[in-house]
């Protein structure tokens, strides 16, 4: 029943995608209006039905669906049962399809307001991408296969034919234990997908602009909001992923340069570069070709990322299975690259209208530096991630490329980016007077160096921490200086208050100030990482009940082992009381969770404190003693907060775009 419903949804969506392509192409060719509402509606409705069928199956424990028989269990509690829909390969593509259909629907709504060739061509491109993903679900990664031979608690054989006679197991094994351990796992993938999938929209507009030979920044304007939505959610997805790793995987870290993490970082880096270079094209008509290259790369990297995570090419906690989906995704990636760059190469007259840059000490100059650094950054991550795979595939040689490699290159690059981020906002467009930039940077730079000096003398002699504080202060100082300078200029003319002046300054160019909010978020992240990575401490102790250890100012007493049995898991752990300066801080309970089976998932416990976290994870536990690892991560909460602030800047900027479209004057606060 559900198999039929779900498959029907997929077929309706695929049909919608086909119609969107054919009608979109025909509307573009003949430059006439065609009904694209029907196809867009079919697409969206089908994908909602598919996800609905999946959720009904989860809610009613319908193990006749092979996907549920293999990944769901009656004991899986809310909200993990809902999240089981995207806890494994086939289901996660259903979510992908739903998000893609949603973005396509919004692109259609945009087209409805101003129907033209750019819009219809972009919808046709979106149709092709939709067709690929719904085609995947109907062929190699069918989420609605019927289980025709049940095992003890899994499905041994399944059939894509929805009317096949089902042989359902009584219960399933439930999702991967790691995915049941924290609520973040229910939220993190949808965020990441909103980010990944959203980048399809600017790609579609870029491809459409090239296809209809339409130069100019119109495609950028059309896709700007989708790009911002995608970028903001991608930011949240990445930071939540780090948080999840920190809270669930018990090694005390949040980022390991794991290929799957890298897969999400690469499109983020390129999309960030694109957000900046898009502005340069809109303002100065420069970097046209470059913007096409960036947006094609960003989209390709999302497909590459999906390939890396979903094909089992890389074994890590995120990679679920090996399947025929690998070759399909790789083929699609090659198709995207070849088609895009061939089109790009044959449309030279569209992309090559670029004036010379007047001065490198200008806004466009700093955006250029930002783009160079961000793309090199993405390139390093790409090379580091794929090099071992390619080398092993072709020569059989195994090499490891891990944290030491990435840190050695990415850390200096990150600091360079911070430096450029400090100067950038202080530089006006065009060919500014260098002394103006100097006057804007002077005071913030002096304050930053003094703050760095205080940090070095009073707090820590660790160079990375001092550098992060200094550059962070420069960034924040320049932003504050700009705000004060412009608010003063407004209040000088009449007798308005300073606060009112500041309000007006922000209202006059909200997008710019929203961007600066994101910059401040980046500073928080940089400082948080610098402190947590360099000033953290670590120890491992074997304790018997009653033992007390002193660690990093904490007094930790092992009270007793404990065991908790609930319906769906058994938790065994060690209970410790934590004191600081003789005062009770809390109880910390590092543990291991057992979901059925014998494989325990080590689950750390964290006591958060404004000065930093105390992190405990269980290494070994028996009746006599417990081996426990303790870590401190100073100021690590700045990292989570910063991620939220960066995304908030993105969302705010999106709203700003809308309200300002009416006053389309070419005004920025940085202009004098």
């Amino acid at each position, binding site marked *: 029943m559900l198999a039929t419903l779900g498959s029907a949804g997929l077929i309706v969506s695929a049909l919608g995608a086909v119609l969107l392509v054919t009608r979109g192409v025909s509307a573009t060719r003949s430059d006439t209006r065609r009904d694209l509402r029907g196809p867009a509606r079919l697409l969206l409705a089908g994908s909602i039905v598919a996800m609905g069928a999946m959720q009904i199956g989860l809610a009613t424990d319908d193990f006749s669906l092979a996907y549920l028989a293999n990944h769901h269990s009656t004991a899986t509690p809310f909200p993990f049962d809902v999240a089981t829909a995207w806890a494994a390969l086939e289901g996660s593509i259903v979510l992908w399809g739903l998000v893609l259909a949603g973005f396509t629907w919004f692109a259609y709504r945009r087209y409805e307001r101003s129907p033209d060739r750019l819009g219809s061509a972009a919808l046709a491109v979106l149709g092709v991408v939709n067709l690929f993903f719904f085609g995947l679900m109907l062929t190699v990664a069918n989420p609605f296969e019927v289980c025709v031979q049940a095992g003890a608690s899994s499905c041994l054989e399944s059939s894509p034919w929805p009317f096949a006679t089902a042989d359902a197991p009584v219960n399933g094994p439930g999702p991967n234990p790691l995915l049941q351990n924290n609520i973040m796992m229910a939220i993190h993938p949808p965020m990441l997908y909103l980010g990944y999938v959203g980048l399809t929209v600017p790609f579609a507009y870029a491809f459409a602009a090239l296809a209809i030979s339409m130069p100019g920044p119109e495609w950028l304007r059309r896709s700007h909001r989708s790009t911002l939505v995608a970028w903001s959610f991608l930011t949240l997805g990445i930071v939540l992923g780090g948080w999840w790793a920190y809270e669930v995987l018990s090694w005390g870290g949040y980022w390991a340069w794991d290929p799957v993490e890298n897969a999400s970082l690469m499109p983020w880096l390129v999309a960030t570069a694109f957000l900046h270079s898009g502005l340069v094209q809109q303002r100065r008509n420069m970097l046209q070709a470059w913007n096409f290259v960036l947006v094609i790369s960003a989209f390709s990297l999302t497909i590459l990322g999906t390939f890396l995570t979903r094909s089992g090419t890389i074994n890590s906690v995120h990679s679920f299975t090996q399947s025929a989906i690998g070759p399909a995704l790789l083929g699609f990636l090659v198709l995207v690259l070849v088609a895009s760059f061939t089109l790009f190469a044959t449309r030279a007259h569209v992309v090559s209208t670029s004036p010379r840059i007047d001065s490198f000490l200008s806004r466009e100059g700093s955006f250029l530096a930002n783009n160079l650094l961000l793309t090199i950054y993405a390139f390093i991550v790409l090379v580091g991630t794929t090099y071992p795979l390619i080398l092993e595939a072709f020569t059989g*040689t195994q090499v490891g490329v891990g944290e030491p490699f990435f840190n050695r290159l990415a850390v200096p690059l990150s600091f360079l980016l911070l430096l450029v981020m400090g100067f950038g906002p202080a530089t006006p467009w065009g060919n500014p007077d260098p002394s103006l930039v100097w006057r804007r940077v002077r005071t913030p730079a002096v304050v930053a160096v003094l703050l760095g000096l205080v940090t070095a003398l009073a707090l820590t002699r660790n160079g990375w921490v001092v550098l992060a504080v*200094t550059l962070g202060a420069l960034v924040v100082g320049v932003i504050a200086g700009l705000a004060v300078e412009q608010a003063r200029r407004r209040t000088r003319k009449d007798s308005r208050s300073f606060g009112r002046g500041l309000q007006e300054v922000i209202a006059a160019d909200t997008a710019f100030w929203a961007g600066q909010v994101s910059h401040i978020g980046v500073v928080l992240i940089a400082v948080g990482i610098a402190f947590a990575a360099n000033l953290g401490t670590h120890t491992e102790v074997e304790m018997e009940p009653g033992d007390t250890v002193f660690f990093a100012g904490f007094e930790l007493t092992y009270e007793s082992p404990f065991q908790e049995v609930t319906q769906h898991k058994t938790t065994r752990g060690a209970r410790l009381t934590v004191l600081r300066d003789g005062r009770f801080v809390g109880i910390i309970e590092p543990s291991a969770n057992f979901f059925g089976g014998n494989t325990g998932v080590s689950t750390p416990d964290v006591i958060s404190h404004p000065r930093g976290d105390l992190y405990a994870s269980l290494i070994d536990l028996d009746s006599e003693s417990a081996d426990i690892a303790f870590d401190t991560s100073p100021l690590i909460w700045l990292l989570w907060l910063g991620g939220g602030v960066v995304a908030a800047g993105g969302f705010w900027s999106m709203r700003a775009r809308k309200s300002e479209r009416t006053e389309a004057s070419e005004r920025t606060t940085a202009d004098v």
Partner: protein
Amino acid sequence: MSERVRNLLSVAVLIVGGLVIAVVVLTAPSDADRVEHLGQIIKCPVCQGESIGDSPADMARDMMGLVEQRVAEGFSDEAIIDELLSSYTGAVLLDPPASGATLLLWLLPGMALLSGAGVIWWWQRNPGEEIAVPTAGQARSGGRMLVGGLILAGSLGLIVVVAGFFLQDRAGPNSGVANLGVENLDEVSNETMEAVIAANINHPQINGMRLALAERYYLAGDYQAAFPHYLSVAESANATDLESVSALVRLGWMAWDGNQATEAALGMFDQALEIAPESTTALYLKGQVLWCGSSDPEAATELFSEILESDELPDDTRRLIEADLAAASQGLACA
């Protein structure tokens, strides 16, 4: 304050402040911990992308134990890395060296930076066509296209040549054996090893295989077969410290255990201790030989106590030595 004074003051603060920060930061005492560093750069063989320092897996913890022991015994980082990579299949360096198969990995980012800068420079010289796109159909740029195409083809060719050159010698720090055409020693028979060794008798990196083979003979009790290989490693100028010490310790023990040759055995142990003064195995076996062969329980007692001073001993080793120490210090004959 005039603008000029302000500027001067600011520049002064920036320069002096920057210098003081640089001095304070750069003269900070390094708290680099060798064990921790080594734990970070070696991949845990049974984990997914984790280092042995981060992983809670049993094998990773064993390997960390070995790292601690070797660091305590005074071995160099290179020797410890070599030993780990050769004893654990699947363990690789997470910090790829800028040589051999991974040199290209280090070169690529630099090449990307250079080409990025090159593109910007080119664009500034040729505004209107910001990137070297093939501008087919535009007659006036035919010449440029040709030059661009040649440069593109040239750089691609260069990359291929460079890559080929370095891939040819894809020797990591531990691929001495792999270079001899053998990937995994566990699957190789003794006869094959003998043949490979005979064919590569002067190969600078043959010692790893010799040791592996000798170890098999030794464990099987075939001292006669093991002896020439250990001897060859011990005398080899190309052997790493770790390899020499392992060979010397085995030679010493075989000399005593097989032939009761006390003096020869003690000589071997002393040679080993010259290379690695804190080698637990060498100290312990020397103590055993002094006790049993030279009937000198006092000298043995001294050596056993010396070993026990180390904090890095695994518990069972410690118990064993403590038992021997107790017996020797009471003047009992060796067991």
